[in-house]
């Protein structure tokens, strides 16, 4: 053990590069914080930058969060619409969704509307 420490010290003082350390903290791994494989073949709702929303069956994905959705329905938000669905929906079929513009992914059944919890904002 002592010899190991001595060797490590040597490497450190050597000003060096790349000694193989045991704790690989500097190695960046592309880890996804969300495991999408559990949503495969399930209907999900996706929200995009720019206000678009879509729902469809998840057929595939990649680590960059590009998605393949089947039977996609797109919902558009208008100024006078204010998040009223069913208006202006389009059937899109099989689409690829660009991961760079995805902001939210959730299961279609996983959401419900609740009354506004922020009604009274009279905090001083």
């Amino acid at each position, binding site marked *: 053990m002592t010899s190991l420490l001595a060797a490590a010290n040597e490497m450190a003082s050597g000003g060096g590069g790349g000694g193989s350390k045991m704790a690989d903290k500097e190695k960046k*791994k*592309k*880890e*996804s914080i969300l495991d999408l*494989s559990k949503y*495969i073949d399930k209907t999900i709702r996706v929200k*995009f*930058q*720019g206000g*678009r929303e*879509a729902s469809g069956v998840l*057929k*595939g*994905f*990649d*680590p960059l969060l*590009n*998605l*393949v959705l089947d039977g*996609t329905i*797109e919902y*558009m938000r208008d100024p006078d619409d204010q998040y009223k669905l069913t208006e202006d929906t389009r059937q*899109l*079929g*099989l*689409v*690829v*969704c*660009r*991961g*760079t*513009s995805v902001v939210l992914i959730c299961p279609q059944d996983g959401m419900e509307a609740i009354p506004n919890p922020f009604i009274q904002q009279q905090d001083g």
Partner: protein
Amino acid sequence: MAANATTNPSQLLPLELVDKCIGSRIHIVMKSDKEIVGTLLGFDDFVNMVLEDVTEFEITPEGRRITKLDQILLNGNNITMKRCLLLTGS
């Protein structure tokens, strides 16, 4: 250790689907209210796309814009969704 991104090989990768659409008409929806329809000639790692025989649509004023030919390069920054038109059936 195995890569954390081990996805099920039997699923469909998004970029594979785009690759299959090369040569067919493709419909691209941008983040804004604009859509582009054209023939897909190719794409790159950043999903910038080269299209041909392109028509540009503005959804809100409901008008068709200029029909552009001679190949365009579409910047992938603003792309939200892509549809392969050859797969629209029934």
